């Protein structure tokens, strides 16, 4: 099952990138960064949805599995949020000659990154396993609720961000869609793998301790 997913992700990623770099070149060449930018934004948000569900699941059932999923999704979320902010920053420099400016979507993506970091710091600072799982589930839920709130509140600030993207050819749309899908799979895969790692690590530590 997992091997199929790995294979599928790889094939999709390569295929989408190949289309993007051959048929789907976006006119001013520097704008090709949207192929990394947009999928990572969507996947970062996806990780937050997983974080919410996992936090909720842990508080309802108390099963450690949910906690590992939450931790994994926060870490993967951090990876995507970092990519999102880095590519966004480069893009912004190329387009408007500034690295960062407070603008609704820039604020929102920065907050995504901060939330992931704070979640992971909180995780690292609690020793006792059950307490950590409980507290982090609570914070995870609150952090996820923060995301729509920040998206709304950032709109009080004037926007410089590009509204929508018009594609020159059908290939650009296709490759972007494929890349979103591929990143979707990649996010799922990473969360899955990380959950497994955390689970085995916990098992190992338990056995060593007692």
């Amino acid at each position, binding site marked *: 099952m997992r091997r199929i997913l790995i294979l599928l992700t790889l094939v999709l990623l390569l295929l989408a990138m190949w289309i993007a770099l051959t048929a789907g070149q976006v006119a001013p060449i520097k704008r090709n960064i949207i192929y990394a930018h947009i999928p990572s934004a969507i996947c970062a948000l996806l990780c937050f949805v997983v974080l919410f569900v996992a936090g909720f699941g842990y508080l309802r059932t108390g099963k450690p599995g949910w906690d590992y999923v939450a931790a994994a999704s926060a870490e993967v979320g951090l990876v995507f949020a970092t990519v999102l902010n880095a590519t966004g920053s480069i893009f912004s420099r190329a387009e408007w000659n500034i690295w960062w400016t407070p603008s*609704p979507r820039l604020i929102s993506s920065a907050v995504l990154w901060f939330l992931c970091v704070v979640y992971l710091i909180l995780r690292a600072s609690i020793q006792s396993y059950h307490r950590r799982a409980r507290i982090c589930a609570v914070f995870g839920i609150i*952090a996820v609720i923060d995301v729509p709130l920040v998206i709304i509140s950032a709109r009080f600030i004037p926007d410089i*961000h590009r509204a929508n993207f018009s594609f020159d050819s059908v290939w650009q749309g296709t490759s972007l869609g494929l890349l979103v899908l591929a990143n979707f799979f990649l996010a799922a895969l990473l969360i899955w793998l990380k959950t497994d790692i955390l689970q085995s690590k916990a098992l190992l530590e338990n056995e060593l301790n007692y």
Partner: protein
Amino acid sequence: MNYFCKSLWAIFAKDIVTEFRSKQVLPTMIVLGMLIAWVLRIVSEAASLSTTVIGPAVLWIAFLFSGLLAQERSFAVEEQEDCIAGLLLAPVDPGTIYIAKLFTNIIMLCVFELVVVPVIFLTFQLSVADKWFEFITVLLLGNIGISCVGTLFSAMVQLSRIRGSLLSVLVLVILMPMMIPATFALLLLFGAIPGELAGSGTLALVGNFKTAIGYMVAFDAVYTVTCWLLFGFVVQE
């Protein structure tokens, strides 16, 4: 319901009495608030910034950081002699404890503001003309927002023996969205920006006083209810 009110009042009265008797937090809060205002006043002069523009930011920064002091205390009191166990052993709902603590923190911030707001008004030469009612509404909504998140996180940090410095990080990252409309509303009240400004561009919201207040009410409602529901998980094992 009757028991809810009684126990709520008992815990609230106990917290207020403890706070005002120990006289530890409030003076520190006030001094910190005044210091923040003072430093930023000098900096704003050096940078030749308009005081009406920087005023709202100063108000919120002072409230945020002084609020953190109050919140940090509110569960340190319970941790000291394992009093939180005493509360949890009683047939009282954890949510009631949360609401009582929330009220205490809001009252602390209000008392603090009674002193600090006039000071900031004088040093920054601010005035809200005849819009006192609106001004107090904004401050109160801000207080509730700061306190409802802060109270929950204070319980997390104190009862789980996480190092205290983490509290400010947790609170600030969650409160960040509320600060935008809160500052915006104050800017409008001080007349620093025209009534219908803000949003230009595709995503921007119609920025007037009403939408800002509406947002703050929504923020407070969402987080008060969420934190009230989640509080039980924080204190119980």
